[in-house]
C-alpha cells in the first residue's frame, strides 16, 4: 500500500461517469423545451419520488430548509407554538422552526444519535404543536414510539428526512412514517441535485395542494393570488437531473451499505461503529463513528491524507444563534458528549476497497500506537 494517498471525504466522479450520458440528454432536452420553471420534469420527479417513498404526493422545493419551513408555515399555528426536535442535527432542523415564527424545543438523543422517545413526553407542553424527529446520518428515528406519543397528545409528526432517503423501518420507507416528511436533495445527500433542492412528501391531497400554492407566490393560476407567499420552487433542470439519480438510488444505497458494513467489521474493536437494529434499514448518508481522542484521530487521519468531517462539533442549542432559546451547557448530556466523539469517515459510491482499507489501517494504527505509548 502506498505511504501517502489522498482520500477525499466525498468524490462524485464515479457517480457522474455512470450517468453522464443521461445528464447530458436531460440538459439538452430541458434547454430545447424552453420551460425552465415548473415544467414536466418537476411534475414527473414529484410523482416518481412520492411513489418511491410510498406516499401519495411529492412537492418539489428549492431546498430542504424551505421544505421544513413551508410545512410548518402551512398550519398557521399561533406564534407561541412549540415544535420539538433534536439538538444534534444540522442547523436547519431548528432554524426552519424559528423561520416559521415558532419556538424550537429540543429533546436529547440516545446513543443511536436519534431523538430519545423516553424523554419526549416531558418536553410536551400545552403549546406543543408538532414533533420533528430527525433521521440523522440516514438511520431512521424511533418512529413507532414517537407516533404513539404524538397520537396521545394530538400532535403532528414531521419527519426531518433530509439525510435518510431510502431508509426503512420494518420495510416501510421514511417519508411515509409521519404526517409529513421533508427531504434535502443537496449534493452531499444520497439522492442529490447539482445544487440546492428539496422535496416534501405527504398523503393528504388538501395539504399537497396548499403547499404547491404556497411555494409559488400563493398563485392558484396566473391571475389569482389566494395568499401572499414567497417563491421556493424546485428548478426544472435540477428536477431532470434528480429523476436520473432516482433510478440509480437503490443500487447506490446498496453499495453504501456494503462499504459501511465493511467499515463496521474492520473497525468495531477500536471504535464505536453504527449499530443497525434488525428492523432498520440504514442508508449511511454519513458513516459516523464514535471515537475516543477524536480530535487527535482526525489530525492523524488528515496527516495521512484522509479527509474526515464532524457533524456537528457544536450542538444547535449551544450556537450563538440559539441564545434566545435560553439553553445552556449540560442541558442535553448525550448530545454534548457525542459532539466530542463523533467523526464521519469517507464513504461514497466509487470508494475503492483499497482506499477504504487505507482509512481503516490509519484508524487502527492510531489506536495501536496510542496503546503502545500508554
Amino acid at each position, binding site marked *: 500500500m502506498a505511504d501517502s494517498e489522498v482520500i477525499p471525504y466525498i468524490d*462524485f466522479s464515479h457517480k*457522474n461517469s455512470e450517468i453522464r450520458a443521461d445528464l447530458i440528454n436531460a440538459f439538452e432536452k430541458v434547454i430545447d423545451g424552453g420551460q425552465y420553471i415548473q415544467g414536466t420534469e418537476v411534475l414527473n420527479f414529484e410523482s416518481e419520488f412520492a411513489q418511491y417513498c410510498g406516499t401519495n404526493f411529492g412537492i418539489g422545493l428549492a431546498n430542504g430548509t424551505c421544505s421544513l419551513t413551508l410545512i410548518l408555515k402551512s398550519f398557521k399555528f399561533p406564534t407561541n407554538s412549540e415544535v420539538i426536535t433534536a439538538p444534534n442535527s444540522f442547523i436547519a432542523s431548528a432554524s426552519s422552526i424559528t423561520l416559521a415564527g415558532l419556538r424550537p424545543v429540543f429533546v436529547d438523543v440516545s446513543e443511536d444519535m436519534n431523538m430519545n422517545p423516553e424523554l419526549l413526553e416531558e418536553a410536551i407542553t400545552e403549546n406543543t404543536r408538532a414533533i420533528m424527529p430527525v433521521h440523522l446520518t440516514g438511520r431512521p428515528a424511533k418512529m413507532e414510539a414517537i407516533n404513539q406519543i404524538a397520537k396521545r397528545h394530538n400532535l403532528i409528526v414531521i419527519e426531518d428526512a433530509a439525510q435518510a432517503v431510502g431508509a426503512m423501518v420494518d420495510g416501510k420507507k421514511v417519508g411515509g412514517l409521519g404526517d409529513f416528511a421533508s427531504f434535502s436533495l443537496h449534493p452531499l445527500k444520497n439522492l442529490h441535485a447539482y445544487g440546492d433542492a428539496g422535496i416534501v412528501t405527504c398523503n393528504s391531497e388538501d395539504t399537497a395542494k396548499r403547499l404547491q400554492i404556497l411555494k409559488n407566490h*400563493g398563485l392558484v393560476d396566473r391571475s389569482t393570488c389566494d395568499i401572499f407567499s414567497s*417563491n421556493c420552487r424546485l*428548478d426544472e433542470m*435540477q428536477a431532470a437531473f434528480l429523476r436520473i439519480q432516482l433510478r440509480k438510488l437503490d443500487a447506490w444505497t446498496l453499495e453504501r451499505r456494503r462499504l459501511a458494513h465493511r467499515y463496521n467489521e474492520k473497525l468495531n474493536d477500536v471504535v464505536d461503529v453504527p449499530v443497525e437494529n434488525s428492523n432498520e434499514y440504514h442508508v449511511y448518508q454519513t458513516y459516523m463513528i464514535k471515537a475516543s481522542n477524536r480530535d487527535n484521530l482526525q489530525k492523524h487521519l488528515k496527516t495521512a491524507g484522509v479527509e474526515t468531517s464532524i457533524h456537528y462539533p457544536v450542538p444547535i442549542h449551544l450556537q*450563538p444563534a440559539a441564545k434566545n432559546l435560553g439553553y445552556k451547557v449540560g442541558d442535553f448530556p448525550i448530545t454534548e458528549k457525542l459532539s466530542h466523539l463523533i467523526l464521519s469517515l469517507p464513504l461514497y459510491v466509487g470508494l475503492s476497497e483499497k482506499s477504504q482499507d487505507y482509512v481503516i489501517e490509519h484508524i487502527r494504527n492510531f489506536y495501536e500506537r496510542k496503546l503502545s505509548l500508554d
Partner: protein
Amino acid sequence: MTNPVWKVPYNYLPEQFKNRDDIFDAWRDLANSAEFTLGPSVNEFENNFKKYIGSKYCIATNNGTDALILGLKALGVRPGDEIITVPNSFYATTGAIIACGAYPVFVDVDETYQMDVEKIQESITHKTRCILPVYWGGASPRMLKIVEIAKKNNLSIIEDACMAIGGSHKGIKSGRFGNVSAFSMHPLKSLNVMGDGGMITTDDDEIYEWLKKYRNHGMVDRDHIDIWGVNSRIQPLQAIVANIELNKIDAIIAKRNINARYLDESLNKFSPNINIPPRFQDDIDTFSLYMFTCKNRDGLLNFLRDNGIDAKIHYLVPLHLQVAAKPLGYSKGSFPQTELQANSIITIPAHQYLTQTQLDYMVEKIGLFYTQL
C-alpha cells in the same frame, strides 16, 4: 411552453440557448469541482454584477422574491411596519412585504404605469419604514423624486428592479437609487438564467455582512451559527449562466429598444384605439414587458392569439383586488388608474429575437383588428 403554432412566440429561450456549448463546458467543470454550495462561480458572478451595476456589494440569492424579502429584513423591517409600494406589480412585491410581517401601503400609478410620485407623501404615516418602488415592465419610476421624498421623511428605499437589470433613469443605473436593490433573473428577464435566480445590491457594509450570513443559514463558518438564517443561495449552475449572459445584456437591451421604438411608431397610428405610455429620452427601459393600453382589450388579445401572436396580460387583477389582499381592506375604486390599466393593458412580444417580418405581422394584425371594429 414554446408552441410551434406561434407565429410570434413570447418565449425565446430555446433560441437564446441554441448554442449552449460554453454553458455546458462550465457546468461540466463545476460538476467535477463539486462546488455546488456558493463557491467560485457565485463569487465571480457577484463581482461581475456589482461592477456592472456600480454598487459596492452584490449578494446573489435563490430568486428575486427572496432578494426582496432579504433586502427588507436587512433594512430592519419589522412586523407591523408599513411599506409603500404599488398595486400593479407581480405578486412577489407584496408577497415579500407580507413575508416580513409588514403591511403594504399601496399608492396608485400614473400614466407611465409607475408609482405616482405625487401620491407618496400623503401615504406616509409614523409607521412607514421604507418605500418600495417597482420598475414595472422595465421602465423607471421617477426615482430622483422618490429619493427626495424618502430623504425628507427619513425613510429608506428598496428598489424592486427585478425587471430592470441594465435599465437607467437620467443616466443613473436602476439599482443605484435604493439603500438596497433587488433583481430577478427569472427566465424572461433582461438578464436571465435557466431557472430561478436573484441578486441584492447595496453600498452599506453592515447590510452586506448581515445578508452574507442570513442567506446561508446564519453561518459564520461551517460550524458556527451566529443568527437564525435561511437558505437562499443562488444555484452555482445558474450563476454560471448569468455570468455568460451578463456579457450580452447591453446588446439585448439595445435590440429590445430598437424593436420597441419601431412598435411605438407603428402603433401610434392606431391612436386613440391604442395608447402608448410616455417614453423618456434620458431613461433606458429594458422592455422586459412591452405594454400599451387599448380599447376592447380582451377582443384584441383573443384576435392576436388566434393569429399566432403570443400576447399576454400583466396582470388581469391588481394586487389590492386579489383574494390574498382581503385582509388589507382595499376595495374596487381604491386605485382608479391601476384599475383602469388592468382593464385595458396588453403585452406583446418585443424580445431580441423578433424578425422585422414578425414585427410587421403584429402591427398588421393590430391594425386589422381596429379597422374591422
